């Protein structure tokens, strides 16, 4: 359509979709030309007809789409041709790369889908962001019952602009229940073979190819692949399970006619997938075809600091856990944020999104609550694992439909209303039942990962054998993958690590696929790596060698020749921790904070102000101070003393602004001066800031804005803070102190919008905090 509009030279205002109203007969004639060339499906001229792109055109989505479908229908009269509602990207990037929330994207698509209810099918195309495409698929499935075809656009190199791989697209879209999937736009059909091959390995669905006519000449805009060659290249791809073919940029009715001619009489050849089961994020696919490590650390159970982080909304703490497990060798991460003091559903969504913004390992959504699982499944980008369903009727009836709808894999626990069966046979029976129920809903048994449950060997010594026997039977008789939390086995015993790693090795030999372990304990990760070598999985031991060959030589701890001050100044974390430990032997902890640590940090801050050191060096010093603080905090909390926080401060980048590096620098510094920072993130609603201040009784608020366009949000936020009665003194004056910063702010402007402090840089934020909180 776009090609025809361009070639016709038809003028339009704003966007080509407006031609549906200004030149309906022209649009119908284009469709007609394609139908006469042999097209079975025509895409209505609705690609960019969403509320965002049409803003300023003077037309609504509804009006344009209805007209477009009518124009296409008219062309189809008297033929069998079908009309597709064509939906392209919204035009903004979704979080985290952009600012559009998943839910906003959903709403844009929903409006289009409702307006297109007279079409015969829905086509989602030219997508480069899997998350946005997921929103579109959900909007289509939840607001219509028409067939859904979904295609993405890949660059040379085999990825989309946002880094999505063809395999991840295929797995995710298949799971979400589209009717066909594939590739459009991108490159010429001569370059698409690797993309199509990768997709078909991961899906049994028919594929779609709608390539460009090669590459355009930047000056003439002529494409370099002619109809005959185009059709030949497409024909060569048919064995990959291609069922739908067409043309994108640069193709005309002549291309379609040639396709029709070449493909005449050729039947669709399904191409079964070769990947048994796999899960993915948008950019990384993990096939479960050998033991894969699931990191267990994102879970508050028995972890005081983790619980505190959840209560404080300290997402960075959780992200640090995610990244360190990834470095330790985890291939998937379990995510559990169940804690009585928080809204688990909200937290799950927030944490999943945050982890996916920095870490591309596939995730396992872990909760006992179906509503938390569903919220997580919606928010997740890719194909996740659900942890878990069990043999109880209630669980089967609520969890499995979610697994089906969102296309996940699922962990099945071998327990039911009567608890955990003592024998392997009892657990095997439950596993059988879970698999049968999953299959009845259309869930492939290869996507059910059975957990035969680890019991504590010090309490029931025979239980270990039963677990392993059950695991063996499930693996060999049911053909399911297996999963097992390992660490429980050693509870109550000394040298737990030894017991755990031995049990892990035994379980691997019985057929364990997915050990859930702490990947930062080398004995555990090492056991899996060594097993892969011994079982002949790690060919030529190459992964094993690369994991250990260049391991850093063990460095003997340096003698503490560094004073605390030297360590902070030099940004030397280990030395700082050591010096702090030594001081703690004979110095009051608060004395260390106030007379040594803070003055040392002040000195570095002064040097920064005077232009003697660079910002990164100030940050390194601050991070070293953080390590010293942590040592002191540990010491104090061991003694039940909580004095070390100097007060709470809210930090936020204002609504509309997504540049948050400045705010994050301020956070590092405030943290390291001993303040407790409640970081609300970026693009923050004013109301959330006010609510948090009230809930947590916080009176100091720091706001950041980078752009002139978002200063208004800063002003709005301050106004709301000032006018909220719960944040006022009895005399009506404000209880809150607001400090602000950001590239385009000035002192004058800060005062004008009602801030108390204007902070030019991170150091000045600390100065303000000192004045207010001491």
């Amino acid at each position: 359509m776009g090609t025809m509009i361009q070639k016709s030279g038809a003028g339009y205002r704003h966007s080509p979709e407006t031609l549906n109203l200004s030149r309906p007969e022209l649009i119908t004639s284009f469709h007609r030309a394609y139908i006469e060339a042999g097209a079975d499906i025509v895409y209505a001229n609705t690609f960019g007809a969403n509320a965002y792109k049409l803003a300023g055109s003077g037309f609504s989505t509804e009006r344009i789409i209805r007209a477009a479908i009518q124009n296409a229908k008219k062309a189809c009269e008297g033929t069998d041709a079908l009309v597709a509602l064509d939906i392209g990207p919204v035009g903004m990037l979704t979080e985290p790369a952009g600012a559009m929330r998943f839910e906003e994207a959903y709403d844009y698509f929903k409006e289009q889908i409702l307006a297109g209810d007279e079409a015969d099918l829905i086509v989602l195309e030219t997508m480069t962001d899997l998350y946005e495409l997921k929103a579109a698929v959900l909007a289509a499935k939840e607001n219509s019952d028409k067939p859904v075809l979904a295609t993405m656009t890949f660059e040379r190199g085999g990825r989309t602009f946002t880094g999505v791989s063809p395999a991840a697209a295929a797995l995710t879209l298949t799971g979400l229940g589209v009717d066909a999937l594939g590739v459009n736009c991108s490159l010429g059909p001569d370059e698409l073979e690797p993309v199509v091959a990768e997709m078909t390995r991961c899906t049994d669905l028919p594929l779609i190819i709608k390539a460009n006519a090669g590459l355009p000449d930047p000056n003439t805009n002529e494409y370099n692949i002619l109809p005959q060659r185009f059709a030949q290249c497409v024909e060569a791809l048919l064995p990959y399970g291609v069922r739908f073919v067409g043309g994108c940029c640069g193709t005309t009715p002549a291309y379609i006619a040639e396709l029709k001619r070449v493909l005449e009489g050729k039947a669709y050849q399904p191409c079964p997938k070769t990947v048994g089961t796999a899960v993915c994020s948008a950019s990384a696919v993990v096939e479960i075809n050998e033991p894969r490590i699931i990191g267990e650390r994102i879970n508050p159970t028995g972890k005081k600091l983790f619980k505190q982080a959840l209560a404080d909304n300290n997402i960075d703490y959780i992200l640090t856990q995610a990244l360190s497990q990834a470095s330790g060798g985890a291939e998937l991460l379990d995510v559990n944020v169940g804690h009585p003091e928080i809204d688990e559903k909200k937290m799950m969504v927030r944490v999943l999104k945050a982890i996916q913004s920095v870490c591309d390992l596939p995730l396992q959504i872990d909760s006992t609550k179906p509503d938390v699982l569903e919220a997580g499944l919606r928010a997740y980008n890719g194909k996740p694992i659900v942890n878990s369903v069990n043999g109880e009727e209630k669980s089967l009836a609520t969890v499995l439909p979610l697994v089906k709808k969102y296309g996940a894999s699922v962990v099945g626990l071998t327990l039911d209303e009567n608890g955990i069966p003592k024998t392997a046979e009892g657990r095997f029976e439950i596993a059988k039942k879970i698999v049968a129920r999953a299959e009845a809903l259309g869930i492939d048994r290869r996507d059910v990962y059975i957990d035969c449950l680890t019991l504590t060997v010090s309490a029931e010594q025979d239980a270990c054998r039963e677990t392993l026997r059950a695991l063996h039977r499930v693996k060999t008789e049911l053909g399911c993958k297996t999963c097992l939390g390992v660490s429980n086995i050693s509870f109550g015993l000394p040298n737990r690590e030894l017991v755990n790693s031995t049990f892990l090795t035994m379980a691997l030999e019985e057929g364990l696929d997915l050990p859930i372990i702490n990947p930062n304990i080398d004995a555990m990760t090492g056991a899996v790596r060594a097993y892969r070598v011994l079982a002949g999985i790690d060919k030529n031991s190459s992964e094993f060698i690369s994991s250990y060959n260049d391991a850093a030589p063990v460095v003997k701890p340096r003698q503490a020749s560094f004073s605390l001050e030297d360590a902070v100044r030099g940004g030397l974390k280990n030395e700082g921790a050591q010096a702090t430990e030594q001081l703690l032997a004979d110095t009051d902890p608060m004395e260390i904070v106030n007379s040594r640590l803070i003055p040392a940090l002040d000195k570095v801050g002064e040097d920064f102000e005077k232009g003697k050191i660079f910002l990164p060096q100030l940050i390194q010093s601050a991070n070293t101070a953080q390590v010293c603080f942590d040592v002191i905090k540990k010491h104090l909390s061991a003694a039940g003393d909580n004095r070390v926080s100097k007060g709470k401060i809210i930090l936020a980048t204002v609504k509309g602004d997504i540049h948050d590096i400045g705010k994050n620098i301020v956070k590092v510094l405030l943290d390291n001066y001993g303040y407790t920072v409640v970081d609300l993130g970026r693009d923050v609603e004013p109301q959330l800031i006010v609510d948090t201040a009230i809930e947590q009784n916080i009176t100091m608020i720091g706001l950041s804005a980078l752009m002139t366009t978002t200063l208004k949000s800063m002003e709005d936020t301050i106004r709301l803070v000032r006018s909220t009665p719960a944040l006022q003194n009895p005399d009506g004056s404000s209880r809150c102190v607001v400090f602000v910063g950001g590239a385009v702010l000035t002192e004058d402007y800060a005062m004008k919008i009602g801030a108390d402090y204007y902070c030019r840089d991170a150091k000045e934020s600390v100065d303000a905090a000192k004045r207010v909180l001491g």
Partner: protein
Amino acid sequence: MITLTPLNRREAVRYLGGAGVQMNAEMERLMDVCEAQLRGAAQPKVVWKRIDLPCEELTAGEDIVRHLSGCTQAVLLGATLGAAVDRLIRVAQIRDMAQAVVLDSMASVAVEQVCTQADALLARQFPDMYMTFRFSPGYGDYPISLQADFLRLLDAPRKIGLTATEHYLLTPAKSVTAIAGLSRQPIEKQRRGCAVCSLRNTCQYRKNGEHCGF
């Protein structure tokens, strides 16, 4: 196809606000690490389009009129380092904030380098034309809200994956849009610098007696 060449570290240091600071070995090491990461992650892409002037859609304020005076045509340019660079900086903010700020400033240098390379590419495309320097939404009184129109006219979302938020922030963040005038006659050397900058009263560089490079 654009490939990054070694980055101008003096520029990066200036973006870090450390123009007057004595360079030291530790900073050099940090910059080595960051530059390697950045060049590994960056996927520089540019898109351009020649348009005829006057272009009503892209005319707003006085500065652009002055900038394009005497030009019969103009080139629109979109340039980006790609989404992976944003992610790299995001990850660094969790792992090591000191690295994050260095990466951030080096990425700004890198996207400027991409634009400079694009200038050379355009000069080759239009050998018989004179070209003004690049002028971007947000310069002078040229409204930043025009980002949306630049992106639409360039088909930038589809061609190079470049979009803007509702508040006109470019995403990926390390990106540029700009317009440069084309003329068959030599163009009078235009003034760049603080005098035509809308941030001249608030600029940190200026307060410190420095210059941002514009």
